[in-house]
């Protein structure tokens, strides 16, 4: 639910970093089920998964964000997202190391991301939030998925 001054976000972790996506984009969160691999696909594509009769592509977000590879655990989840890409509505899945709660962040709790010293390309990050001690990185999730290229800030230069 969105009021004039705050939005709801789903938070998830990749490695040590805590990310957040607008709740409106998230269709559902699935346990890790059998993901069929697609040979010869780019390494950040984990495969496709059957979500109630539809084959949904699954992106390995760790790889996409340039994090060192790690094994799936019992906490690993698939975030099933609905995004507008190239003017069309697309359903796509993203692998997260763990998914946490839905939080509300008011606009005054958000800050502009710093130009430099961020690991990832600035345009992917909508804002930085804070909940208690933890920094939360608010993603422009459509941009994350729209980009085929390396998401690391260093690659952009």
């Amino acid at each position, binding site marked *: 639910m969105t009021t004039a001054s705050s939005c709801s976000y789903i938070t998830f972790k990749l490695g040590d970093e805590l990310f957040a996506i607008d709740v409106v984009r998230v269709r559902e969160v699935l346990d890790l089920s*059998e993901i*069929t*691999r*697609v*040979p*010869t*696909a*780019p390494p950040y*594509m984990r*495969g*496709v*998964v*059957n979500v109630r*009769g*539809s*084959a949904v*592509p699954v*992106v390995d977000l760790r790889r996409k964000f340039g994090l060192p590879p790690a094994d799936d655990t019992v906490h690993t989840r698939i975030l099933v997202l609905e995004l507008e*890409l*190239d003017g069309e509505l*697309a359903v*796509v899945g993203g692998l997260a190391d763990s998914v946490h709660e839905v939080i509300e962040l008011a606009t005054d709790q958000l800050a502009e991301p710093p130009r430099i010293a961020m690991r990832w390309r600035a345009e992917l990050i909508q804002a930085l939030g804070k909940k208690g001690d933890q920094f939360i990185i608010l993603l422009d999730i459509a941009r994350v*998925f729209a980009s085929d290229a390396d998401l690391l800030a260093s690659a952009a230069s």
Partner: protein
Amino acid sequence: MLAAGYLQTFVDEARELLERIEAGSLALEARPDDREVVHQLFRAFHTLKGSAGVAGVAAIASFTHHVETAMDHVREGRVAVTPALISVVLSAKDHVAALLDAALGGGAVDPTAEPALIGRLAGIAALAGTGAPAVAPVAAPREITDFLITFRPIRTLEVEPADLLDELRTLGQLVVLAGPEAPIWQLLLTTERDERAVRDAFLFVDGSGELEVEAGLRELIADEPGSQPPPGPVAARTIDPSPEATAAPAASPARAAARTDATVRVSSERLDQLVKLIGELVINQSRLHQAAGAHPSAELAGPVEAMARLIGDVRDNVLGLRMVPIGTTFTRYQRLVRDLCGELDKSVELVTEGDDTELDKTVIDQLGDALVHVLRNSMDHGVERPDERVAAGKPARGTIRLAAAHEGTHVVITISDDGRGIDTAAVRRKAEAQGLIQPGELLSEQEAIALVLRPGFSTAAAVTQVSGRGVGMDAVKRTVEGLRGTMSIASERGAGTRIRLTLPLTLAIIDGLLVEIDRDRFVVPMAAVTENLELGRTERAANNRRNLIAVRGELVPYIRLREVFAMPETTDDYEKIVVVSVEGERVGLVVDRVIGSHQTVIQPLGRFYRGVDMFSGTTILGDGRVAMILDLPGTVRTGARHQEAS
């Protein structure tokens, strides 16, 4: 004004009349002596005017009256058929199309267009006053009456409504405003016969309903007692008018042979919905089949087999519904070429082949614009101006050939011209200037030609209004690839260019051979499979990296899919080779084992897998697992690249 349902029906009917008018006009331009076409055009405008009047769309009724008057002069022989006349008729057709859109609430109409057209039409009519007839009329002028028929069935009819409508069609041109599925039929009949003949058609249902036949037309008012708009988008319609029952000698044999097949118009959405349901039916049948296999039972075996067969038949039928002959789009291209000839001062004939070739409707819809662009490119950059052509020893009139044909599981569409061909030197220069290639980069002729398909490319010295900045060719390629097809260009300097589009026959459901590789499942399109063989370990080793196997006396190359998929080597002693035919060549695909046949819905891979050309989609298996569907041309290409690299 009219109830919404009537208006839509009228617009649908009118649009079909317009298509016939366009086709007729182009035919008349090619054969100005064809009197039968003149009569057809007159009748079409007459009916358009009449039904517009009945539907209450005064703007169209009053405008088409002017065209009808002009056409009347032509059919009486008072005015000759000239290119100027054809141009006016085509422009009038465009104007009516715009008026139709406006009637539905979409699109504005240029207020200056109509007076200009009426002026031109009046100019033609004025020629009629100039003494001797331009052409002697072949037959005596025919008296035509419009009848508005209202029929309300009270009891079940003794005859099939469709037969009754066919009977009426033998009397003249029938427009069905509300058909037998509505509580009250409303029909518009344009005929040379009298009221007696119309009533006679209803003889056998006399007593089963209330019949009203009115000569002349009036506006249909929406709130008439008991009247209702026809339900949904389904309405009966004629395909072609049948020849008049009082056959006057026609100048040419009936090319528009009477096809009184009754058809039903169904919305694409309903068809798509049906295909989706069929898809789910197929998936569930597959699960049933699997479950039945796991619990063998004599009682189940029969019905399960019967289900499989029946569902297969229903599936084929439904998919057949979406197949449309490509010739329906070809008229549009004739018009396009004609108009461009005028704009560019060139002379080109468009020859079409394979008009009957059927394609999935969705494919045709999406291809339409792409083909327009290819044709524009051909007209603009390919075919030279007449003086240039003659200087080069070619006939002044250029030819563009548009052909469609089935090839196995695909449809091949070829667009070729006899123009100047692609100047690869200029293409290279341009590509270098745009940074698409490195200066001095070595490219084969074919690779140079393919540069034209890169995004953002254009060799036009001046960006012409016709084909723009060359944004077209790469967009065409994307459209074709989006439809899981391929595109190739061949060209010879001075001789011409040929573009080949290869598209799959159906987008929806596939008959496949299910195979297993490293415990994953894959589907090979069944239509391409020629045979299955065994590959033993010793034979594998003996092949010494040459990957060839003898099949019925011929050496066939094979692709080790485990290798291409970067999967570990197999530990089994035996593998299987599935031999497929791809673009005329046989290739073997090495798999762990062959499981069996499998039919189900194809799901496209989506944009994330755009660069993966080995697979054309995915399918959900009976047990819920996902299987990848092999794209055979893509697999062969990848296999070849892999072979070269190793």
